[in-house]
């Protein structure tokens, strides 16, 4: 006589082919306080859970790791100090992101700091062309002395403060320093409407006030220059 496959079947109308003597009460054997079925159910589910976690947790960590890792700080020389003055912007192209070819290049407008705007005359101001609305490249229009975005009509004044259109904050800036007579550009940072430096934001995000909490700082970005 072979072992019946369906002796524990709960299907209605399905009779076990072989009746075994049943333990009383059902499922419990002598001296046991927990059915074996229950013990093995809990144990196998626990082991299965550990095995699943051993796979899932590293994989999830692998996928979210970039949120917590900050790249190396990059500085790139864009020209000798004499090239830049306080009255006008000079356009430079440099590589902001490596490894993606042409797509990693970006444009910045650089001028010398001017006492007229409460800036250190020995500093250099590098304004990013990334529009604070959705990230289109703005250009500086000499005749208007404004930065104008071609996509949705965002307009910024000479300092990069928003004066029209949908942008939500002034244009971003890049940290600058002088090494060996060359102006070098470093990490990007964002500014508030009062041009106070804050941690870099993506376009479309407000800066200053309560927005510093609604758009919390990301561990993947560099801290802003102190000012």
């Amino acid at each position, binding site marked *: 006589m072979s072992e019946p496959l369906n002796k524990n079947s709960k299907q209605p109308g399905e009779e076990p082919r072989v009746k075994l003597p049943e333990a009383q009460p059902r499922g419990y054997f002598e001296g046991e306080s927990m059915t074996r079925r229950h013990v093995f159910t809990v144990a196998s589910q626990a082991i299965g859970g550990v095995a699943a976690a051993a796979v899932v947790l590293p994989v999830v960590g692998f996928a979210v790791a*970039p949120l917590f890792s900050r790249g190396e700080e990059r500085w790139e020389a864009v020209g000798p100090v004499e090239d830049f003055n306080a009255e006008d912007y000079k356009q430079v192209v440099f590589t902001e992101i490596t490894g993606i070819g042409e*797509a990693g290049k970006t444009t910045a407008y650089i001028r010398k700091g001017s006492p007229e705007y409460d800036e250190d005359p020995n500093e250099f101001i590098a304004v990013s062309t990334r529009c604070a609305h959705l990230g289109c490249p703005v250009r500086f229009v000499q005749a208007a002395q404004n930065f104008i975005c071609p996509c949705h009509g965002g307009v910024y004044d000479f300092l990069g403060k928003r004066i029209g259109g949908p942008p939500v904050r002034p244009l971003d800036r890049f940290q600058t320093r002088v090494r060996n007579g060359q102006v070098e550009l470093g990490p990007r940072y964002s500014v508030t409407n009062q041009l106070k430096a804050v941690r870099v934001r*993506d376009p479309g995000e407000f800066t200053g006030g309560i927005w510093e909490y609604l758009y919390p700082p990301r561990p993947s970005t560099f801290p802003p220059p102190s000012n």
Partner: protein
Amino acid sequence: MKLLPSRKKQSEADGSENGTDEAVAKPKRTAQAKQLATHHGTQAGIDVAGWVDSRTNASGIFTAMMSRHVPKGTNWFYTLGSATMFIFAMQAITGVFLSMYYTPSATQAYASITHMTNEVFMGEFVRGLHKWGASLMIILIFLHMARTFFFGAYKYPRELNWVIGVVLLILTTVMGLTGYLLPFDQRSFWATIVANNITASGPIVGPYLADFLRAGPDFSATTLSRFYALHMMVVPGLIAALIGAHLFLVVKLGTTAPPWIRAPRPKGARPTEVVPAGVAVEDNEEVPVNGAVAVSDESGASVEEAEANEAEAEAVEAETSEPTGDVVAPAEAADESAAPEADVPQAEADADPDAQGDAATDDSGDGEVNS
């Protein structure tokens, strides 16, 4: 009781029990040699199919899926879901073949796309299918969704299928977003930049979500690989799984009749004993229920429920419609426009909504009425 079919010798030994199994039934008078010759000569293919079928019940599942009863009035609008699924299959197939030529690297992606489009045999056609199919799939989904909405097919008991459908719509748009970047030309690059920036402008979680999408604070070389992996593996898998769930529910619950199909009331069968709350007994054709819902909606719901029960009964016992037969008979007699035998369960559902509706109400419509 369903047992695995035993082999031929055993089935002959106790033929009375397993004799109904067509897959292994053989005439006993045939000599063994001739039987073997027949077996190897003409029956081998059938036997393989029968061998698989007897172990998987594939034909039963196929019958339950493809030969289920559909409501009267089913029309071309009901094909939009299948059309969407066909486009998904086309996208899956062309996508697999496109990946044979595509290089998901920021410096080589565009070159590989131009190569496959301009130089590979039929490359432009295959890529064109994939590109235009993407738009077509979105269009078909919205048409399918509109059909479901305007025919009221999202109502009980099909709400979960609507929810699954909405998730499928979202996943399909995610496919559109991630696939748009892959050619890596100016348009796809800037579209992705903008999409990421919109994501990032959501308060609190937005910046982190955008960081996750592009694998860092800025668009980088990893972003393309990440979008490629999402487009190629993660989202299609989810979509395929959810399409399975979507179809399962369609088969289990059945489809709805169009709203303009009115269930004809059998002559002399107007019920007086069961009246919905708020309806005047004298004239329950005209008085609205709860001040807003017309009586016609009430009877429409009965038809839906009856059909849901019908589909359930079909799914449970795919072979026989005997249990519903005695319920059918009076309705068929009463309704002069009753359909012939092929449509019998349907005729019952259409012709006798009150009986079905009452039964369903008693049973809170859980589909056990007919079984």
